[in-house]
């Protein structure tokens, strides 16, 4: 059905002009329907109800889209330090998005922050706003999503002009202090159509490049040259939103860690401790606040000092303390589940085994040739177990384990 625009808009589209020529005599909303021809996807079923397209087709399309977006196994710089710059100039108050650009952007940013920490547990994020031509830091680089969202909610009024240079300089001054193994990024959500700078903005762009800061921009209004240049120079992505839903999609695209540029982060081994959590109700002296605390708390494995929260550095011996689940949240990037393949229903599947009746994961009936169950049947290339479409989506998007591969024992090496 409605295919999401695959390419980021505004970066490279020569063909777009012609399409626009052709559609000139139609209103924008008419064009949306003309391109789509969504009514053709409607099928009448035996009871006379309208069904939105064949289920099998729909599922295939979804899978194709997902596969297209998931590239090969890329090395990702997972400890990210990202400054999120939000343009709160008066352009953000415009009402072309409903209810206003500002409200829509705020919504997207909230979703982005939550997703960001979900997928990048060890990363840090800070917020900078531009208002009246001045950039100001709203929150420091830190790891707590709720704190960011709370501060952001209390700071949502817009005025004056936007200044890209001020924002870049400010974020650079903070980002150049982060450890070298961290991956430095700036993400700008830009509503204005121009920038009002105190000096040469190109100078700031060059500085960002030197400091290995990757800058990406999501445009709310229209494509502008300076943003395009900024992204090109620093290796970021520039995209411009067409509507509210598209904006959200574009913003959330930046949640997944970017492919680490080989030279961007110096690889290093960091020594870390994985402390144990104490029993509820025990009393101990904590090293961070120098107070007696009851319950909870973690013990540094090296010097046995007690700390209250993770991640932190041990206050006695300086060891970096993390909770291992924190690290483990990102391992699914490293060991992705292989993409499942579709099994043709009519052809005798490889002739050896009979098709299993139920999905290996959820025990739901699987489609067979001539059976009433519709949908696609999928097979894991590694363990040859069969799955239904819904389990496929769940396994690849949330679980990140193949139940089949996990439930038989590999010969020991």
């Amino acid at each position: 059905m409605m295919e999401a625009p695959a390419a980021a808009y505004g970066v490279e589209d020569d063909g777009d002009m012609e399409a626009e020529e052709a559609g000139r005599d139609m209103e924008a909303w008419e064009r949306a329907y003309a391109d789509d021809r969504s009514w053709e996807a409607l099928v009448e079923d035996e009871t006379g109800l309208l069904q939105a397209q064949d289920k099998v087709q729909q599922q295939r399309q979804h899978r194709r889209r997902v596969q297209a977006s998931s590239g090969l196994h890329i090395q990702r710089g997972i400890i990210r330090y990202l400054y999120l710059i939000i343009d709160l100039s008066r352009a953000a108050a415009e009402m072309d998005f409903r209810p206003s650009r500002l409200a829509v952007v705020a919504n997207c940013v909230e979703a982005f922050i939550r997703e960001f920490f979900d997928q990048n547990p060890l990363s840090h994020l800070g917020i900078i706003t531009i208002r009246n031509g001045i950039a100001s830091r709203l929150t420091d680089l830190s790891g707590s999503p709720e704190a960011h969202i709370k501060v952001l909610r209390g700071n949502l009024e817009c005025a004056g002009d936007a200044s890209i240079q001020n924002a870049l300089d400010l974020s650079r001054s903070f980002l150049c202090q982060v450890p070298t193994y961290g991956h430095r990024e700036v993400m700008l959500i830009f509503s204005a159509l121009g920038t009002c700078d105190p000096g040469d903005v190109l100078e700031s762009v060059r500085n960002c490049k030197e400091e290995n800061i990757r800058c990406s921009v999501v445009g709310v209004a229209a494509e502008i040259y300076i943003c395009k240049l900024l992204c090109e120079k620093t290796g970021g992505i520039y995209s411009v939103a067409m509507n509210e839903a598209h904006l959200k999609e574009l913003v959330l695209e930046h949640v997944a860690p970017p492919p680490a540029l080989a030279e961007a982060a110096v690889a290093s081994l960091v020594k870390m401790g994985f402390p144990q959590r104490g029993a509820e109700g025990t009393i101990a002296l904590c090293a961070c606040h120098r107070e007696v605390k009851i319950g909870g708390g973690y013990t540094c494995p090296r010097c046995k000092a007690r700390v209250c929260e993770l991640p932190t550095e041990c206050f006695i011996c300086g060891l970096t303390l993390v909770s291992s689940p924190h690290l483990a949240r990102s391992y699914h990037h490293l060991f992705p589940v292989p993409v499942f393949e579709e099994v043709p229903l009519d052809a005798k599947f490889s002739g050896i085994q009979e098709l299993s009746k139920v999905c290996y994961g959820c025990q739901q009936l699987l489609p067979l040739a001539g059976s009433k169950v519709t949908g696609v049947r999928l097979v894991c290339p590694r363990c040859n177990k069969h799955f239904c479409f819904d389990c496929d989506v769940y396994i690849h998007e949330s679980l990140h384990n193949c139940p089949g591969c996990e439930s038989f024992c590999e010969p020991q090496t």
Partner: protein
Amino acid sequence: MDILNNIESSVGNKHLLLYIMWDLADDVSLVIVVVDVNPYFWVEKANASTGTSDIDFEQFLQHVLAFMNAILLLNHMNYLAVIATGSDSCSFLYESLAGESVSDGEGKPPSKRMNKHHTPSAKIVRGLKDFVSKELAFKTERKDNGKRYSLLSGSLSMALCYVQRILRQDPPHPHPRILCFQGSPDASQQYIAVMNAIFSAQRLMVPIDSCMVGSQHSAFLQQAAHITGGIYMKPPHPEGLFEYLMMVFATDLHSRRFLQLPRPTGVDFRASCFCHKKTIDTGFVCSVCLSIFCKHHKECSTCGASFSQNKSSFVTGQKRKLSTN
């Protein structure tokens, strides 16, 4: 158009929908029981048994079956699914839905009808017999005796797929929870898979309860209970297992807000290293991919990044300012 859009988004973002907090206004539950039936473990336990204070597999099974009957007794709408974890395979032994749709078209009609009238316990026991004989066949086929762990990650993954299927149905759904009966020790090579399952359970808001029947604690399941808000318990008197089950694990999610339940006694947050699968409390972490190693390496075996020889770079915590070369 709206309807089309809705369908589109419901296909794409099903997992997002599941974030929606459902209210726990009633006690209708889906309990997925994951039973460790690893023959290596139970045989060893029987050999090492000291007598009175321990239970063998038969007693254990009786207690668990009575518990499952209790779950089904508590509410007409309760769902139950039982997954057996072995050392070579995992499989569903029983699921409440099977009678309705799955067994359709399976076998001949008369046997299907008889099937319907068997009690759940009978079905579970029959499924278990098949499963154990298969496991033993694997065991004899394989000559090495060293391997003792169970495929916990596999059965957790299956349990979550099943939960997710129930949540896909039209609301209202039962409130799902997973209960693991675990005896065999943790297998550190399953670390990543188990953690993935735990996080997914957390996102689905499915608590993972654990009842340890072996002699040692499980760091995996302690973390699971901690992260998903489940209950972890190692009964001090295994022979009275049923009492513990009724007092603690029969409690539905609704009642858990009102009842006193055992509090966690510390959680083992140790990780296992990627190179030797050892459980460690301090280690080296690759800054590119976060892989954990127990020793200093020149190169990351997971992502291939080569680490600088500068000692100060991995003894962090001191000044982070690095010389540029």
